[in-house]
């Protein structure tokens, strides 16, 4: 999370989001067009007044100018509308593109990277963060481009009409960026701090709301209420501090624009008195003068979007910069991962040789110098204390993590050389803590085999012992899951995971503590119904699954290697278990 100080335009964003580039070009064109319309309006208006005041012209004599004035008004109005439409169009496609890249890359980074609290933060970045970038690209950046081009064009015209006014306006305009940089730096810093405060407030808020049952059970709901009030008041104070600084740049800009117009009016008045300029010129310059500052003021009003958008862009690119292994082979990715060889675990052993895995930021390896060999069709139980690296071994075989040293081979072919997605087609898996997705029970089962027929679904539902539950549901397998539908217990979730695992006709089966939440009687039932499916497959089960799998071999991973307190954990693993309170 490096925080660089930068100019108002994030070069990376513009470089990496092509829509943003095109959009800026359109905004520039519209800005120049509007500036031309403004000059035309001013000149025509001044001409009418000049004719009427100095030459006592009547309406009929100024009719052509008035018609032209109306035309300029219409042109400007249409260009302004177009600008807004273009901004709306761009911001939507920018955010969609960024969100897609972010989530896609997060999936490439893999489940072990996503483990833990990162998911929540990433969710916030992919929703609120991308929204902030949308405002930055869609509103702020085009304003900024117009703010550079339009004043420059208008000043050039003023210079041809009256160089003294042009000099005054130029002086004021030149002060604007200086004021913006001076005042904007502080506000950008504060906005970044506010983002952190906002995240911690929302985390606190969520914790209090989600913990409400506990708070109620202990009669402390009123205390939680006070904490909500205190944290939100803290947010107000912090936000107001940010805004007092953020609005300073707007204040500076408006002061400069007000003074600019005031000074120009004074100079023009004096020059008219002295007879060194004409009314038509003076009046046109006067009408144009505030328009020189208008785009700058608009850009200034969106300045907070800049700070917030850049902070969010930082986080997004921070994720995108993490080196990842592509999940599936575009041709380039296949070349990088060494080709498209695919070995079948039915043809030869799955073999780990002296494999060491270390999660980033951890001193001790999660798995050290591990040797393990699974013959085709063999059932092996991997045992060891919690945190010994059992789940990590499964993550290795799923291709979620890569070994730091040593090799994983399947029938003699290095796993790292196989396209990960094709390899995973040969693997079925029950994670330790299965995730159930929004959608129906059926949708969740079909994750294992999207093309499953109804009779296949029912077979696995019966095999894992979910049939009585499904039978009691009026809508059966179509019952929606989740908080708005059927809430499943940990044991039932495990059954669903087992069922979707058993839907896959994969030669290698990885089971991570598959019956931890099930009673012993259930193990026997499960074994009876699943043993046929497991029989001719290679099975690696982490932890004891008495009853479900009768291992041909038990392999113990010794304790002591892995660092219990480290933060990164393999996906779905349970938190490190307290070992008798003697840690450290």
């Amino acid at each position, binding site marked *: 999370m490096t925080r660089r100080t930068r100019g108002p335009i994030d070069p990376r964003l513009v470089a990496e989001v092509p829509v943003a580039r095109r959009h800026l070009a359109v905004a520039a064109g519209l800005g120049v067009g509007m500036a031309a319309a403004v000059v035309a309006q001013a000149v025509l208006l001044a001409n*009418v*007044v000049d004719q009427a*005041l100095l030459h*006592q012209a009547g*309406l009929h004599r100024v009719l052509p100018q*008035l018609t032209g004035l109306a035309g300029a*008004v219409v042109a400007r109005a249409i260009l302004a*509308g177009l600008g*807004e*439409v273009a901004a*709306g169009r761009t911001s*939507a496609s920018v*955010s*969609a593109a960024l969100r897609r890249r972010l989530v*896609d890359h997060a999936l490439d980074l*893999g489940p072990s990277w996503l483990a833990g609290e990162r998911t929540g933060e990433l969710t*916030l970045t992919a*929703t*609120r963060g991308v929204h902030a970038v949308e405002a930055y690209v869609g509103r702020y950046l085009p304003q900024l481009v117009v703010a550079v081009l339009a004043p420059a064009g208008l000043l050039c015209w003023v210079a041809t009409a009256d160089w003294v006014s042009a000099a005054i306006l130029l002086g004021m305009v030149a002060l604007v960026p200086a004021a913006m940089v001076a005042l904007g730096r502080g506000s950008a810093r504060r906005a970044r701090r506010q983002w952190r405060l906002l995240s911690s407030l929302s985390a606190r808020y*969520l914790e209090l709301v989600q913990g*409400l*049952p*506990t*708070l109620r*059970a*202990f009669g402390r709901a009123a205390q939680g209420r006070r904490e909500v009030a205190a944290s*939100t008041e803290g947010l*107000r104070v912090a936000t107001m501090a940010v*805004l*007092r600084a953020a609005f300073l740049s*707007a*204040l500076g800009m408006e002061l400069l624009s*007000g*003074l600019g*117009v*005031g000074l120009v*009016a004074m100079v023009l*008045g004096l020059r008219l008195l002295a*007879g060194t300029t004409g*009314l038509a010129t*003076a009046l046109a310059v*006067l*009408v144009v003068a505030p328009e020189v500052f208008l785009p700058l003021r608009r850009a200034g009003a969106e300045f907070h979007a800049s700070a917030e958008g850049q902070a969010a862009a930082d986080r997004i690119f921070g994720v995108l910069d993490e080196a990842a292994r592509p*999940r599936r082979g575009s041709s380039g990715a296949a070349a990088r991962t060494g080709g498209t060889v695919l070995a079948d675990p039915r043809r030869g052993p799955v073999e780990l040789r002296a494999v060491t895995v270390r999660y980033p930021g951890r001193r001790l390896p999660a798995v050290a110098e591990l040797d393990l060999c699974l013959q085709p069709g063999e059932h092996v139980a991997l045992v060891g204390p919690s945190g010994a690296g059992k789940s990590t071994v499964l993550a290795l075989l799923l291709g*979620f993590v890569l070994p730091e040293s040593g090799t994983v081979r399947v029938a003699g072919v290095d796993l790292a050389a196989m396209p990960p997605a094709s390899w*995973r087609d040969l693997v079925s898996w029950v994670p330790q803590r*299965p*995730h159930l*997705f929004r959608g129906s029970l059926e949708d969740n089962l079909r*994750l294992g085999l999207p093309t499953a027929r109804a009779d296949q679904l029912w077979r696995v539902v019966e095999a894992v012992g979910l049939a009585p539950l499904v039978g009691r549901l009026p*809508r059966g397998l179509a019952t929606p899951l989740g*908080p*708005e539908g*059927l809430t499943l217990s940990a044991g039932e979730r495990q059954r669903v995971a087992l069922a979707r695992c058993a839907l896959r006709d994969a030669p290698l089966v990885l089971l991570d503590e598959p019956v931890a*939440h099930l009673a*012993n009687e259930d193990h026997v039932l499960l074994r009876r119904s699943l043993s046929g499916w497991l029989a001719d497959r290679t099975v690696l089960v982490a932890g004891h699954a008495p009853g479900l799998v009768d291992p041909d071999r038990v392999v113990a991973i010794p304790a002591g290697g892995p660092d219990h307190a480290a933060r990164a954990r393999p996906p779905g693993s*349970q*938190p490190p278990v*307290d070992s008798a*309170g003697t840690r450290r």
Partner: protein
Amino acid sequence: MTVSAPRRAAPSGLAAPTGTDHPGGQRRRTLRSLLAIGAPPARRLAAAGVLGSGAVLATIGLLAGSGYVVDRAALRPGLGAIAGILALVEVLAFVRAPLRYGERLAAHDAAFRALGRWRVWLYDVLEPRSPAALGRWRRGDLLARAIEDVDALQDLYLRGAVPVVVALVASAAAVSVVGLVLPPAAPLLGGALAAALLVSGSLALAASPLGEREAALRGSLSAEVVDLLQGAPELVAFGADAQALGRLRAVDDELARLHWRRSLLGGAASTATLLCAGAAVVGVLAEAVAAARGHRLAPTMLAALPLAAIGAFEAVPPVTLAAHRLGDVLAAGRRLLALRDVPVPVADPIDPVPLPGGTPELALREARLRYHPELPWALDGVSLVVAPGRRLAVTGPNGAGKTSLVNVLLRFWPLQSGEASLGGVRLEAAAQADARRVMSLVEQEAPLFAGSIRDNVTLGRPDAGDAEVAAALRAARLDAWVRTLPDGLATPVGELGSQVSGGQRQRIALARALVAGGGILLLDEPTTGLDRDEAAAVLGDVLEAAGPRSVLLVTHRPEEVEAFDDVAVMDAGRVVEFRPGGSAQGAGGNTL
């Protein structure tokens, strides 16, 4: 996860706001409710209105004044004739910016104060409805609701109230001044201003339903992202990631389409505003030229009048923006207000009967509960008794109704029939808080709160003395571990679970229940997520620490029931087997 999560929650979502009656009337009613709940401080809002009107009037004065200066100077009357007005122009040029700065600060401060009230309101609404109602919302949605909906309401104050007031005040002032100088120009300017406000306002209002739709989409977007990221391991392992990304993309595309339609309407509103402003300038100018020619107007006012018209239109765009954002604000507000309509499942009786203190007898008779008419009975006629000091273990497969027992006893859910009582007093006749004082809960995967270990242990009784806390820690076998921590009891527990192991978390939950001081311990799967040895150690310590208290354990691990006096086996909401133990447990007795 917690005790709370109802095992079977209602499958239907929240009742959607009905769209049967007149949308305008509904909109007004929603607005009234919103302003009534989060009333911003009136003084700050008024200050913002006054400052903002001042800023617009200063702009009008600056433009018109400088136009007059130039016109006047063109006739070369000598410096004295324009010095006064020139000085006034310079003053107006200077004061406009501070006025605007003050307006912004006052309006934002008012809005954030109102938002603070909203966050507390939301908590108040959720509190009596949790866990019953809480389980109904997806986590992503809840986050969106708590943060984004409330945040969206700031525009109600910032962009709603203040700009409308400013526009009305500034328009009225501009029209009257122009009318004083040139009466026929007043209806021109007034008409153009009114037309701009009406046309652009209604165009923006037409976009308002799109805003509501967009807000709903953002909610599902958020839920989709949560699902995708939390379920990433399975999606990748089963090759279903492309499909899930496709769903996300579909939501994003729909969002983009809506955005596009909204920006079309928004662009049209801007164009309309500029056209009205242009019409006003051309019209006032033409009127002025005709009037000057007819000697009804001093020719030196020729430029000042159209320039005043330009200035007056400065107040219009903020109103358009307000109307444009109204849809978002109303959608957020309506969703928030809908929370209020979710019925509170359990209400206190008007005249609560006091519950006996100490360790009363706990009894359930023919208790029936279900979470939704379409779902099976969670408790289907359960009768159980825990005599004072006795220990009852309830076991059975998942879905048997064990956690529902806890939900009913702690009064999170009402019984449909039958009764639950403490010491012969029906729980429905007593205050909920009283029942929760008598029964202390140890949850499965107990949530810990940000704060120190001590804060968490004393959650139920913040005034507990150091000796009590120390005794509870000893009983929960946490004392040795706490002594190894550099800050001891003051050590923050950090983000849930990240710095505290599962065993420590459950021991903290036990110490918390002991300090809370209820005479009955309710243990809801207290060893979930712990390995076998750890689970046995924690449960053994719980029972030893329980002392003379009654204990009701709910567990799916049959090996855990051995140390209990009585064992009930449940299945599908019924007690299918009851194994009574020996004589009643004596006070201070120990089953280990």
